[in-house]
């Protein structure tokens, strides 16, 4: 087994008396395309936010390529090469589309190249015709793409995508799946999703979160036939 690119050890987050993340040991190999699933409130988004420094963990550690980043600032984690698309589109709503992408490109590649890179990204996302529109006026799906575009313009080593296909049409979802596979050629990708069809399209390995812990981790087909996972999704808590 190779050294993990991302690892968490006994990671825990409490909000008041609630353990939103209750001792998660997670390993991610370089180059993986992993899906996280689980019912609402299982702790998936909280987990993502802790990995990117948006929420400090209560205890435990997060290691990126062996370095402890559990107390690092958001921008330090961004610089190390972890990018995230948050669950709700997290873009610069009042600013033009091109400017959104420019700001992302500018940081990693400098002001001189940022314009060209932003234009190329708009082509890739097929959004060039909207270059000067404020992103707040775009559709939900388009804003999701803009945010994904901003994340990959940074050339990150790990890309975390929280519900990238939420609110998209079937056609848009397929394009998003293709985009994610493309991103996965150069980066390790973790996706939180609810849409099983979508996960079937992209996933190699699936991790199931339940009540703040990892319930199961396996290939997509094996997870789908796992009785415990079915119980969790169908709400049969008797055995859990």
């Amino acid at each position, binding site marked *: 087994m190779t050294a993990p690119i991302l690892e968490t050890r006994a990671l825990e987050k409490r909000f008041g008396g609630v353990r939103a993340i209750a001792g998660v040991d997670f390993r991610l190999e370089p180059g993986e395309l992993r899906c996280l699933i689980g019912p609402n409130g299982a702790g998936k988004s909280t987990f993502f936010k802790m990995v990117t420094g948006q929420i400090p963990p209560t205890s435990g550690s997060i290691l990126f390529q062996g370095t402890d980043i559990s107390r690092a600032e958001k*921008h330090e984690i*961004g610089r190390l090469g972890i*990018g995230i698309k948050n669950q709700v589109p*997290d873009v610069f709503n009042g*600013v033009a589309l091109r*400017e959104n992408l420019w700001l*992302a490109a*500018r940081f990693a590649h400098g002001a001189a190249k940022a314009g060209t890179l932003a234009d190329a990204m708009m082509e890739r996302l097929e959004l060039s015709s909207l270059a000067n529109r404020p992103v707040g006026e775009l559709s939900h799906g388009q804003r999701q793409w803009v945010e994904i575009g*901003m994340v990959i313009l940074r050339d990150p080593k790990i890309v975390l995508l929280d519900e990238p296909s939420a609110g998209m049409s079937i056609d848009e979802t397929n394009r998003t799946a293709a985009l994610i596979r493309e991103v996965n050629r150069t980066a390790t990708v973790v996706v939180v999703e609810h849409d099983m069809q979508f996960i079937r399209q992209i996933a190699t390995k699936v991790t199931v979160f339940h009540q703040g812990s990892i319930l199961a981790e396996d290939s997509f087909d094996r997870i789908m036939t796992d009785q415990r996972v079915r119980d969790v999704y169908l709400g049969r808590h008797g055995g859990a």
Partner: protein
Amino acid sequence: MAGERPAWWWWASIGTALVVLMAAPSYLDIADQLDISIIFILALLALSMGFLWGQGGMLSFGQTAFFGLGGYSYAVLALNTGETTSAFFIAIALSMAFALAVGYFMIYGRISDIYLSVITLVVTLILEKGIRATSGDQYVIGSVRLNGQNGIPTVPSLQLPWNPGTELFIDGVFYLSAALLVLVYVGLRLLLASSFGRVLVGIRENERRVELLGYDARRYKLAAFVLAGGIAGLAGVLYGVWGNFVSPAMFHLNQAAQVVIWVIVGGKSWLIGPVAGTAVVQYLSNWLGTQGVGQVSLWLGVVLMIFVLVFREGLLPTAALAIAWVRRRLGRREA
């Protein structure tokens, strides 16, 4: 606005404005020159606040703290040394240093935006109280008595740097404040088109996203805060030079409130808004003052409430929206 370089017509307007301003004193009497220079000086103060709020998303209510500090520093330094050029620059540097200290604690403490407003306001109130308490003989810096609430009279006029024997007279102050207002306005406009300005606007829109992209937002915010502190300090120095007088009223709550009103009335989303707002409100308050309609602060309060409840964008952007609306209506009729 951010990211775009100014168009030719913008440069043409700036050029025209400069020509008009430089020609103006020949056609204005001394009293008008004085009235108009003070609007330029106060517009600089409004610009420092409007830039922070409209572009950086930081609502600093205490720009008067740096304004007053700039004025007092200039007065004390110039009276002690008898030399005004270095006093001019050191006073601005001191305002910036104070902004750096206050800003560091607020911005690196990550206190929320709304607390930043309240803390900056409290800072200026406490400074005012502190200066007011210096009426005793023991409060002396060098050879200058601070005089408590009476302020420091006899603040020296600026001398020409290349000829310290010559002092700027009223028209000289007019030229200087007009030129500095245009310079600061153009500088801020170009800054907004630079990488720094574009990141700053990004922070205003979504600070978390900027940080997740790898920028240290705190550094950008602090730099903008210090820059704005310097501009407010510059306004304070010019204020001292303009009236040969500084007083604790420079830090006063009413002064701080007026800055906010200028910016709100003119509109914060454009840099020219605060400048226009200052001109309109100052003109109206002077007029109200001569009408004998009671306390000016009463009317300022009414104006502030009306603008917050009704014209949230301020005059200029509201006017622009109205023009766009009329255009759309006309276009529809033609089609």
